[in-house]
C-alpha cells in the first residue's frame, strides 16, 4: 500500500512553525532565570513532535537536527543537565536554524547546509559535556553496514553447506501476559509466516477448575520454526512480551535435501524490513542510523508532487486560523437569515396591503440578522494582537544582549483582537519602534543606576480597545526625549528654522521628519534616520495615527491608534448643500442645532463656538469642500457636529443630520487619488457616492 505523504506536508509545516514558536517562547521564559519543568517539557515536546513528524514525512535532515536538540532537552528535562545561558542561546539559534530549514524545504529550495552544520556542531559541543552519547551520525552509520555485512557473510556460509536452519522456541508466558493486550495466538500466526512451523502446548500448569482464573495465562508452548530466518526476526515477534514471559530461543541445523536456492531467494529480502521496524536492542542512535535507508523513498514521493505542493504553499500565507465557535455563530446567523428570507417570500407570494406591518417587521428582522452576520464575518478576520506581540520577547532578548542592557518586556492585552490585515501591516512599524526604545530609550545599566533608577529597564507593550479603535502603546522608562537636543538637531539638519519656538508635542513630532536621527553613531539596530517617518506613514496609511508623550529622564510613551477594521464603519450621514458626507460615528461627540449668530468670529483665527465652557473651532463644510450652500444655510441655521480626535474637539458646521448607517469603505486612493479632508468613499442605498470625512485631518486643519 503506498500513500502519497505529500498531502500531509502542509499540515506538518504549519504544525512545525507553531511548535517552533512555542519552543522559542518557552526558551525565552527559561531565560529569565526561573527553571520550570513544565516549560522544559513544552519545549521538549515541540522538538519531539517535529522530529517524529519530519522522520515520518521524509525530511531526514530536519529529523537528524532535531534529534540532537531533543537529546539535549531530554537531559535537561530529566535533570541530568543544568540549564545554562549558553545552552539556551544555542537552542534559540537552533530554533531559528530549524525555521529557516523548514521554510526552505517548504519552498522547495535547497537548505543552507553550512548554517545547519554550524548549529549542529554547536549543539554537539553543548552535548559533549555529558559525554553520555556520541552525537554524530557518522560512527553509527559506519558500524551499521559493517553489522549487515557480517550477517550476510554468515548466511552465505550456511548456504554453501546446504543445511536447513531452524529455531526452537520455548515460550512460557507469565500469568499476566494477556493483560497487556498481547495474544500468543497472534504471535504464533506471525511465526507461521516466517517458515514451516509446529507448536505443542503444555497444559500441565492449568489449575483445577475451581481455582481457574480465566484472565490468567496458564499455558506454555514449545515452538519450532524451520527456515533460514535471522534471529532478529524471531526476537522481534516476541519483542513486546519480553519481560512478561520466559523465552528461550535456540537455533538448530538439520541436514536435509532442501535446495539451496530457496535460501538465496529469501535472504536478500529478509533483513531490510527488520531494521526498518525495530532493532533487537535499540539505542537512540541506532534508530537514527536506521532512518537513512528508508529515507529516499518518501523524498522521491515528495518530488513527484511538485504542482500540488506549490499550490498548497501559496495558500499558506493567506490562510487564517479561526476559532470554531466563531464559525458556529456564523452558521447560526445564516440559518436565521434563511428563515427570515423564507418568511418574507411567503408574505410576498400573496401580498395584500394589510400584510404591510408584517412585511415591515420581517424586513426589520432581516436587517438585524444581516447586521449580526456582518459582525460575525468581520469577527472571523479578527485575530489577537499576540500574533505580533509574540515575536517581541525574542527581539528584546537578542537586542538587549547585544547592547549589554538589562531590559524587561511586559506584554499587556495580548488577547485584544484586531483585523488580520491590520495585524500584518502593523508588525514592521512596531518592530521599529521597539528597536528604537531599546537602542535610544533605555539607558545602559550604569547610567540608570547613576540616575537613581532600577538597573533593569522596562518596556511595556500595551494593547486595548477604545471606541472603534485599537490602541497600542509602547511605554519605556528610559531617558525620555530631550527637547533641546531634538530642536538643535533639527536646526543643524536644516529641517527647522533657528528661531522657531516649539511646544513639547511639536518638538517630539520632529523625530517623524524624514532624515532625522539623533543617535550619535549609527548602530545596526537603529539610527539610520529612515525609520520614524516611514513608521508614521505606514500607520497613517492604515487610517491610524501615532503620538509621543515623553518626559526627560522618566521615559517615553508612544501610542498608536488604529481602526479595528478597514472595511466597514458606522457612519452618520450629514447634508451639506446638495451633497451627502459620512462622518465616522466613533468620532462624533454630540450634535447641536444652532443659528449662525451663535458663532464667535475671531480675527485671523476663523470662527469658534462656545460649547459649555469650551471654545471649539468651527469648520464650515460647504466652504472647505466648495459646495453651493442651500437656502437653509443662507438663513444661518444649521447643525454643528462636534467631533473629537484624541481629546481635541472641533465643530463641523453642516446643514442637517440625515441618519446613522453602516457604510462599506471604498478607497479613494485606489479608485481616484488622495483628497485632503476625505478618508474614503462609500456607495449609498440609492447608488450615489458619498465621501467619508477624514476627521483627524479636519481636526488638525481646524487647529492650525
Amino acid at each position, binding site marked *: *500500500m*503506498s*500513500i502519497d*505523504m505529500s*498531502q*500531509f*506536508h502542509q*499540515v*506538518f509545516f*504549519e*504544525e512545525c512553525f507553531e511548535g517552533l514558536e512555542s519552543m522559542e517562547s518557552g526558551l525565552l521564559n527559561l531565560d529569565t532565570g526561573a527553571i520550570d519543568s513544565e516549560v522544559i517539557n*513544552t519545549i*521538549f*515536546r515541540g522538538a*519531539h*513532535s517535529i*522530529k*517524529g*513528524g*519530519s*522522520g*515520518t*514525512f521524509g525530511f531526514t535532515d530536519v*529529523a537528524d537536527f532535531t534529534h540532537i536538540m*531533543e537529546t539535549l532537552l531530554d537531559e535537561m528535562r530529566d535533570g541530568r543537565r543544568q540549564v545554562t545561558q549558553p545552552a539556551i542561546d544555542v537552542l534559540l539559534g537552533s530554533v531559528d536554524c530549524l525555521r529557516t530549514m523548514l521554510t526552505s524545504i517548504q519552498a522547495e529550495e535547497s537548505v543552507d547546509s553550512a548554517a545547519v552544520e554550524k548549529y549542529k556542531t554547536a549543539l554537539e559541543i553543548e552535548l559533549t559535556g555529558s559525554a553520555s552519547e556520541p552525537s554524530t551520525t557518522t560512527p553509527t552509520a559506519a558500524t551499521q553496514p559493517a553489522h549487515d555485512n557480517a550477517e550476510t557473510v554468515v548466511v552465505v556460509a550456511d548456504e554453501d553447506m546446504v543445511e536447513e536452519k531452524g529455531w526452537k522456541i520455548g515460550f512460557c508466558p507469565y500469568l499476566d501476559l*494477556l*493483560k*497487556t*493486550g*498481547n*495474544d500468543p495466538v*497472534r*504471535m504464533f500466526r*506471525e511465526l507461521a509466516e516466517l517458515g514451516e512451523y509446529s507448536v505443542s502446548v503444555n497444559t500441565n500448569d492449568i489449575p483445577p477448575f475451581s481455582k481457574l482464573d480465566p*484472565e490468567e495465562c496458564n499455558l506454555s508452548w514449545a515452538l519450532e520454526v524451520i527456515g533460514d530466518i535471522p534471529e532478529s526476526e524471531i526476537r522481534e515477534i516476541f*519483542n*513486546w512480551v519480553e*519481560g*512478561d514471559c520466559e523465552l528461550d530461543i535456540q537455533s538448530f541445523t538439520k541436514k536435509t535435501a532442501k535446495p539451496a536456492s530457496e535460501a538465496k531467494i529469501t535472504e536478500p529480502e529478509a533483513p531490510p524490513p527488520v531494521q*526498518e*521496524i*525495530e*532493532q533487537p536492542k*535499540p*539505542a*537512540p542512535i*541506532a*534508530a537514527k542510523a536506521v*532512518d537513512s535507508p*528508508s529515507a529516499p*523513498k*518518501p523524498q522521491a514521493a515528495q518530488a513527484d508532487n511538485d504542482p500540488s505542493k506549490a499550490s498548497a504553499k501559496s495558500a499558506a500565507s493567506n490562510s487564517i486560523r479561526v476559532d470554531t465557535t466563531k464559525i458556529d455563530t456564523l452558521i447560526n446567523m445564516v440559518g436565521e437569515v434563511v428563515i427570515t428570507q423564507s418568511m418574507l417570500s411567503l408574505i410576498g407570494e400573496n401580498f395584500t396591503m394589510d400584510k404591510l406591518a408584517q412585511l415591515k417587521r420581517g424586513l426589520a428582522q432581516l436587517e438585524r440578522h444581516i447586521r449580526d452576520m456582518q459582525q460575525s464575518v468581520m469577527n472571523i478576520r479578527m485575530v489577537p494582537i499576540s500574533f505580533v506581540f509574540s515575536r517581541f520577547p525574542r527581539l528584546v532578548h537578542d537586542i538587549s544582549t547585544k547592547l549589554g542592557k538589562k531590559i524587561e518586556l511586559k506584554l499587556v492585552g495580548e488577547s485584544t483582537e484586531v483585523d488580520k490585515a491590520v495585524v500584518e501591516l502593523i508588525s514592521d512599524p512596531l518592530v521599529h519602534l521597539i528597536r528604537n526604545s531599546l537602542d535610544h530609550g533605555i539607558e545602559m545599566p550604569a547610567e540608570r543606576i547613576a540616575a537613581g533608577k532600577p538597573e533593569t529597564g522596562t518596556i511595556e507593550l500595551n494593547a486595548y480597545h477604545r471606541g472603534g479603535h485599537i490602541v497600542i502603546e509602547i511605554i519605556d522608562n528610559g531617558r525620555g526625549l530631550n527637547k533641546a537636543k531634538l530642536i538643535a538637531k533639527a536646526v543643524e539638519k536644516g529641517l527647522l528654522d533657528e528661531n522657531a519656538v516649539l511646544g513639547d508635542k511639536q518638538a517630539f513630532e520632529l523625530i517623524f521628519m524624514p532624515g532625522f536621527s539623533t543617535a550619535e553613531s549609527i548602530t545596526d539596530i537603529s539610527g539610520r534616520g529612515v525609520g520614524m517617518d516611514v513608521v508614521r506613514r505606514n500607520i497613517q496609511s492604515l487610517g491610524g495615527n501615532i503620538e509621543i508623550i515623553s518626559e526627560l529622564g522618566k521615559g517615553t510613551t508612544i501610542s498608536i491608534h488604529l481602526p479595528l477594521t478597514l472595511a466597514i464603519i458606522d457612519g452618520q450621514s450629514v447634508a451639506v448643500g446638495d451633497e451627502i458626507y459620512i462622518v465616522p460615528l466613533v468620532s462624533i461627540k454630540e450634535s447641536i442645532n444652532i443659528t449662525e449668530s451663535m458663532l464667535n468670529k475671531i480675527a485671523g483665527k476663523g470662527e469658534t463656538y462656545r460649547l459649555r465652557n469650551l471654545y471649539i473651532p468651527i469648520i464650515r463644510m460647504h466652504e472647505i469642500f466648495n459646495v453651493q450652500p442651500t437656502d437653509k444655510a443662507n438663513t444661518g441655521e444649521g447643525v454643528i457636529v462636534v467631533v473629537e480626535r484624541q481629546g481635541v474637539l472641533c465643530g463641523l458646521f453642516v446643514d442637517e443630520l440625515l441618519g446613522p448607517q453602516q457604510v462599506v469603505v471604498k478607497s479613494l486612493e485606489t479608485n481616484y487619488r488622495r483628497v485632503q479632508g476625505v478618508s474614503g468613499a462609500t456607495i449609498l442605498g440609492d447608488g450615489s457616492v458619498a465621501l467619508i470625512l477624514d476627521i483627524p485631518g479636519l481636526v488638525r486643519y481646524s487647529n492650525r
Partner: protein
Amino acid sequence: MASILAVDDSASMRKMVTFTLKGAGYEVEEAVDGVDALAKAQAKRFDCIVTDVNMPNKDGITLIRELRSLPDYKYIPMLMLTTESSAEKKQAGKAAGATGWIVKPFDPDQLLKTLNKVLG
C-alpha cells in the same frame, strides 16, 4: 471492521495515521491528547488504541494506564507511537499496560503491518 482510536497532539501525524488506517478499511476516530482520548474511549469501546507518548494534558503512558484499568479495555491492544527507542520508555509503557510500540519514523506500511499483529 475493527475500530481504532488514534491519539496524537500533532495534527499531521494524526492525519497520516487516520488516513492510512481508513485506507485499510479500519474505522478510525481521532483524539488530540490523553484527556480527549479517555473521554472518547469511555463513550465508545474501541478495538485498538494507537497513541503518541508525549502529549500535553495527559501523556500516552498515563492514558494507557488509565484505560487498562477500565473493564472494557482490559484486553484491548494499545500501541504507543514513540520516537524514544530507549528501553526505559518502552518498559514504562509496558508497565502501564501497553501491548507494544511503533518507533517513529514509520511509514504507512509499517503501521499497517504492526496493527495486523494485534488485530484480526
